[in-house]
C-alpha cells in the first residue's frame, strides 16, 4: 500500500513542503501562494470600485489610485492569471495525465517555484519600500516609467524573476511531454489539457525572453541612463511598446490556452460523451500559439504606426479568433445529445464558454481599426480584458479547481456551496464588467480616479456588481476551506472521468503509479460504440 503524497515524509512539515521536488506538492505550493495574492488583488480592486462609487476624491488620492490599479494589475497578471493553470494544475496533473512519475526536471521545477516566490515577495515589497508603490500601470510604458520616482525598478525586476520562473516551467513541460509519456500514449491519445499545456509551454519559451530583456532595459535605463528608450537621448518609446507587446500579447494566450484545455477536460466528463473534434481542438491550441505571436501591435493602433502595419495587424487579429472559435464550436458539439450532468464544475465550465464568447468577440471588435480609435484606452478595454481574463481564465481556474479538488486533496466539497457561489459570481461578474463595457462605449477613459456626472450611474451599478462578485468568491473559498477541513473522503474517480489521473487513488500516491500504465485507447472513450 502506497502512502499518499500529502502524508508527512519525516523531514518536518516545512521542509517536507518547501524542499519537495514532488510535482504534486509543488503544484499545491503554487496554489496556496497564488490564492493568497489573488485575494490581495481582489481587495485592491474592491477599493478602486468603492472610490468610483462617488465623484471626487473620497477614499484615496489620485496618486494612491494610480498605485492601486498598477499593483492590482501586476499581482493579478504576473502572480495569478499568467502562472495560474499551468503552474498549479499543469504541475499537478501533467505527469498524472501522461502516466509519468514526475516531470523531466523535478529540481528545476522546485527552483522555478523559488523564483516565483522571490518575484512575488519583491512585487509586494515594491508597494511598501522607499519611493512608494509603482504608479505606471502594469505595462510600465516609457518614458513615464523612466521618470517616476516610485519603485518601478523593483517591480520590474520582480516581473523579470516571475518571467524566468515561467520559462523554466515551459522548458520542463515541453521536455516532459516529449520524453515521459507512458507506453502507448501517442500524441493523439494525449488528453487535450496536455495539448494545451504543451502549446502554452512553447509560448512561454518563445515570448518570455523578450519581456525579460525589455524589463532589464527599463532597469538599466533608470539606473544608468543608457538612452535606448529615452526620447531625450534619441530613444524611441514606441519601440518599447513593440518589445513589451511582443511578449505581452502572446502572454494572454499563456493565460487562456490552458484554461481552454481544462474546459475541454470538464465538458466531455459531464456530458458523458467523447470530445467532438479531438484533432481540431488539439491543433487549434498550436494554431493559437503560432498566430498569437503575430498580433502584438494591435495594442498600438493609436501609437503612430504606419497605415500598412495597422492594416496587417488588424487582419492578423481577425484571423487569430478562428482557432478559438473552433474550440467553442467543438465544445458545443460535444454537448449535443450528451447526458449532461450539471455538477458544480460543469456550471463554471459552461459559464466560461458564455463569458469567453463575449470577451473574445469584443476583442474582434477592437481589432477593427476604425472602432479601435474610439475604444482605445476606455473602460471598454477594461471590460473586454476582464471578460477574457476573469470570465475566461478565472472561471476556468475555479472550474478546474472544483473538478480536480477531490483528486488533489482527497476530500469532497458541498455542491450547494459551490453552486450558490457560482450564482453570485456569475451575476456579479456580468453586472460589474458589463457596466464597464457600457461606460467605455460612452467614452469613460480607463485609469482615471474620478469620473464626470454622465458616467455616475453606471459606476454605481458596477460597484454594486463588485460586491455581489466578491460575495460569490468568499462563498467559493469558504466552501473549499470547509471541505479541506471536514469534507468526506473522495473516491478515486468521483465524476467518472476517464483520463489517467482518475485511475489512481485520491489523493494520489507519492510515486503516482505503482506500475506505469499502458495506454490503448483515446482518453475520452465515454461512448465506445459510437466512436470510430
Amino acid at each position: 500500500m502506497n502512502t499518499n503524497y500529502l502524508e508527512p515524509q519525516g523531514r518536518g512539515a516545512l521542509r517536507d513542503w518547501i524542499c519537495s521536488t514532488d510535482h504534486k506538492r509543488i503544484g499545491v505550493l503554487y496554489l496556496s501562494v497564488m490564492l493568497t495574492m489573488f485575494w490581495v488583488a481582489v481587495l485592491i480592486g474592491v477599493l478602486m470600485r468603492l472610490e468610483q462609487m462617488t465623484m471626487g476624491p473620497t477614499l484615496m488620492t489620485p496618486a494612491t489610485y494610480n498605485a492601486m490599479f498598477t499593483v492590482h494589475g501586476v499581482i493579478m497578471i504576473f502572480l495569478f492569471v499568467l502562472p495560474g493553470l499551468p503552474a498549479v494544475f499543469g504541475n499537478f496533473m501533467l505527469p498524472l495525465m501522461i502516466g509519468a512519475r514526475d516531470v523531466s526536471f523535478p529540481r528545476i521545477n522546485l527552483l522555478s517555484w523559488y523564483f516565483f516566490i522571490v518575484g512575488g515577495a519583491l512585487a509586494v515589497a515594491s508597494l511598501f519600500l522607499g519611493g512608494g508603490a509603482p504608479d505606471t500601470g502594469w505595462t510600465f510604458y516609457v518614458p513615464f516609467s523612466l521618470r517616476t520616482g516610485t519603485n518601478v525598478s523593483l517591480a520590474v525586476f520582480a516581473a523579470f524573476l516571475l518571467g524566468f520562473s515561467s520559462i523554466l516551467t515551459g522548458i520542463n513541460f515541453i521536455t516532459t511531454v516529449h520524453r515521459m509519456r507512458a507506453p502507448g500514449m501517442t500524441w493523439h491519445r494525449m488528453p487535450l489539457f496536455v495539448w494545451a499545456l504543451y502549446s502554452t509551454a512553447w509560448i512561454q519559451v518563445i515570448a518570455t525572453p523578450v519581456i525579460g530583456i525589455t524589463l532589464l532595459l527599463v532597469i538599466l535605463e533608470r539606473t544608468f541612463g543608457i538612452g535606448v528608450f529615452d526620447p531625450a537621448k534619441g530613444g524611441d518609446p514606441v519601440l518599447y511598446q513593440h518589445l513589451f507587446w511582443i511578449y505581452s500579447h502572446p502572454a494572454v494566450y499563456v493565460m487562456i490556452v490552458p484554461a481552454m484545455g481544462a474546459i475541454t477536460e470538464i465538458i466531455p466528463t459531464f456530458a458523458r460523451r467523447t470530445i467532438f473534434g479531438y484533432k481540431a481542438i488539439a491543433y487549434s491550441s498550436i494554431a493559437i500559439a503560432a498566430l498569437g505571436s503575430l498580433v502584438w501591435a494591435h495594442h498600438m493602433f493609436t501609437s503612430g504606426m504606419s497605415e500598412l502595419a495597422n492594416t496587417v495587424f488588424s487582419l492578423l487579429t481577425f484571423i487569430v479568433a478562428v482557432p478559438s472559435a473552433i474550440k467553442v464550436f467543438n465544445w458545443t458539439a460535444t454537448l449535443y445529445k450528451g447526458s449532461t450532468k450539471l455538477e458544480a464544475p460543469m456550471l463554471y465550465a459552461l459559464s466560461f464558454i458564455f463569458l469567453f464568447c463575449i470577451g473574445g468577440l469584443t476583442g474582434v471588435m477592437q481589432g477593427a481599426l476604425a472602432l479601435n480609435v474610439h475604444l482605445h484606452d476606455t473602460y471598454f478595454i477594461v471590460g473586454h480584458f476582464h471578460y477574457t481574463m476573469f470570465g475566461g481564465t478565472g472561471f476556468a481556474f475555479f472550474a478546474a479547481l472544483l473538478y480536480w479538488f477531490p483528486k488533489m486533496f482527497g476530500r469532497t466539497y458541498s455542491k450547494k456551496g459551490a453552486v450558490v457561489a457560482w450564482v453570485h459570481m456569475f451575476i456579479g461578474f456580468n453586472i460589474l464588467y458589463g457596466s464597464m463595457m457600457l461606460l467605455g462605449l460612452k467614452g469613460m477613459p480607463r485609469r482615471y480616479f474620478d469620473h464626470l456626472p454622465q458616467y455616475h450611474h453606471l459606476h454605481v451599478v458596477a460597484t454594486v456588481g463588485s460586491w455581489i462578485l466578491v460575495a460569490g468568491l468568499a462563498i467559493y473559498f469558504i466552501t473549499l476551506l470547509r471541505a479541506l477541513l471536514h469534507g468526506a473522503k473522495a473516491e478515486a474517480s468521483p465524476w467518472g472521468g476517464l483520463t489517467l489521473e482518475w485511475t489512481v487513488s485520491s489523493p494520489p500516491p507519492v510515486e503516482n503509479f505503482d506500475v506505469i500504465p499502458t495506454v490503448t485507447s483515446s482518453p475520452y472513450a465515454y461512448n465506445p460504440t459510437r466512436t470510430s
Partner: protein
Amino acid sequence: MSVHRDDLGARIGMWLFLFTEMLLFGGLFLLYSAYRSLHPLEFHAAGSELNVALGVFNTLVLLTSSYTLALSLTAVEKGQAQLAKRLVAATILLGTVFLIVKGFEWSAEFRHGIYPNGPELLKRAPGEVLFFGLYFTMTGLHGLHILAGMALLSVALLKLAKGTVKRGESIFLENVGLYWHLVDVIWIFLLPLFYLAA
C-alpha cells in the same frame, strides 16, 4: 523516488534554454537594427572609435576556448579524465583572458567620458548615444554570460575531479559546452555589429 536518467531529455531541455537565450539577445538585436537604420552615419562614426584589433583578438580567444572545451568532451569520452580536466581549466583561463581584455577596453572608454550618461557621450549626436548605449548593454550582458559560463565550467571541473562526470555520463559537461558555444556564437555577431560597423 526512483533514479531516472534521460540524457536526450536533458539535451532537449538545454536546447530549449539556448533558444530562450537567443531570444533574450534577439530583443537587443531588434533595437540595434531599428536604430542603425535610423542613424546609419552616426553608427558608422561611433563604430570607428572601437579598437578592432582587441575585438578580433578576443574573438580568437573565445573561438580557441570553444575548441578546448570540445576537446575536453572528447577526452572524457575516451576516458582521459586528467586531460579533460586540463582542457576545461584552459577554457576557464581563456574566458578570464577575454574578460580582462574587455575590462581594458571599457576602462579606456570610461576614461574618455564615454559611458551611459557620461559627459563626453552626451555631447554627441543621438545616434552615437544609442550606439554606445547598445554597445555597453550588449557587451555587458554578454560578459555576464561569460561569467555564468565560467561558473558552470568550474562546477564541471569539480564533477570531473569527483568522477561524477565520466565516460558515458558526460551530459553535464556536454550541456555546459552547448551553453559556452552559444555565448561564443553571440560574440561572433557582436563583433561585426559594433567593431566592424565603421
